[in-house]
């Protein structure tokens, strides 16, 4: 059976302006429907890799997203197909209230204004934050803020969801809520994490990063079974 690569990266290298080599020849394939975790220590290059896929950094190598090879001509089309949940979500809100922020995603599909607000409310209901529709997202708690940001992203129905430390600042209960919500989405996902819990509960695959390289890619089951490997990574 043939598989569709939603993300294809080949020999990607990148150095930060201070000369620190963040990525040293990363090669990775993420197939449609996969939920792949990027696990590894601080400074392994996980966030840098995600920023490259979203077109926010520009290293050397091949990056293909949803069949589009990254170039100045295709970058806008690629970004339209990607949703990105930043590790510090408070910086990704654009509108002064939650409803209007979620509407930003909906309006990418250009529906009439009334339909857009109804669709945005539906997304808020799905993420159980409809009661905060008129609140400023910066006034919400960490868990609610994370859900509001995710609703804003998912309302644009991206083909690929990139998440940088999605459980950052969340307690166990809120982490479980977020994982349940993510599990209900059929989007292809690639996310960086330091939490064993997220890999075992959400990931179908896990790529391990060390010093700017992908050192191994395992299925979720392989990862769950290998206690030694989990101890090594987390």
């Amino acid at each position, binding site marked *: 059976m043939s598989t569709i690569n939603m993300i294809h990266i080949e020999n990607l290298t990148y150095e930060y302006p201070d000369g620190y080599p963040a990525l040293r020849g990363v090669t990775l394939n993420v197939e449609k429907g996969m939920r792949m975790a990027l696990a590894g220590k601080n400074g392994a290059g996980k966030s840098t890799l995600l920023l490259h896929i979203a077109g*926010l950094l520009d290293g050397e190598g091949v990056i293909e997203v949803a069949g589009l090879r990254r170039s100045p001509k295709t970058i806008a089309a690629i970004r339209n197909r990607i949703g*990105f949940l930043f590790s510090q979500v408070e*910086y990704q809100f*654009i509108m002064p209230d939650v409803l209007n922020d979620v*509407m*930003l995603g909906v*309006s990418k599909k*250009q529906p009439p204004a009334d339909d857009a607000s109804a669709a945005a409310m539906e997304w808020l209901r799905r993420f159980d934050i409809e009661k905060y529709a008129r609140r*400023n997202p*910066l006034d919400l708690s960490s868990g609610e803020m994370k859900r509001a940001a995710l609703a804003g992203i998912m309302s644009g129905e991206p083909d690929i969801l990139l998440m940088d430390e999605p459980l950052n600042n969340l307690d166990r209960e809120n982490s479980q809520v977020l994982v349940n919500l993510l599990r209900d989405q059929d989007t292809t996902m690639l996310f960086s994490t330091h939490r064993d819990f997220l890999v075992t509960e959400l990931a179908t695959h896990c790529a391990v990063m060390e010093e700017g390289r992908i050192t191994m890619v395992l299925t979720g089951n392989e990862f769950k079974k290998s206690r030694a490997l989990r101890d090594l990574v987390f």
Partner: protein
Amino acid sequence: MFAAFSLVSGYIIGDVRVHDSIILALKIILIFNIFLGGMQWIGTGGYMYLLNRIPSVRVRLFFLLLGNNMLRIMRNNREIVRQIRSRITLTGKNRLIIARYYFQNMLFKELYSMQHSHGALVLRLGESVSCHEYERNVRPLDFILFASVAGYCAAGAMMLCL
């Protein structure tokens, strides 16, 4: 902070203009307060109503980001003040150190947020930015607030003319 930068750059080029820097700081505070006071007065509903009436998407976005940044600066301000107060005792000479750390922190936070905000903008924005309009309820208290903001601005304007 901008006034401090203006003083520092004045010092570097050997032309310190304290008076101009103070005027600059006052103008910034004035604009900041007019904008925030206005937002408080008309509420999110009124703000959205006004934004939707701006024909240019770029100008609409400019005002959205301006409002967002002001709220973020206020939030950062609270956070930085708490962080500094938790580490430094507020006595005598320490007050000068506080000012130094405050500017550093604020600047780095702003640079960090700019990087993320830019990412969010290029990834999240579509062709247009249209806002959902709520009903506008302007209550007597809103008028009082607006009147006090206007009075404050008038006083500020008078000071600038002195």
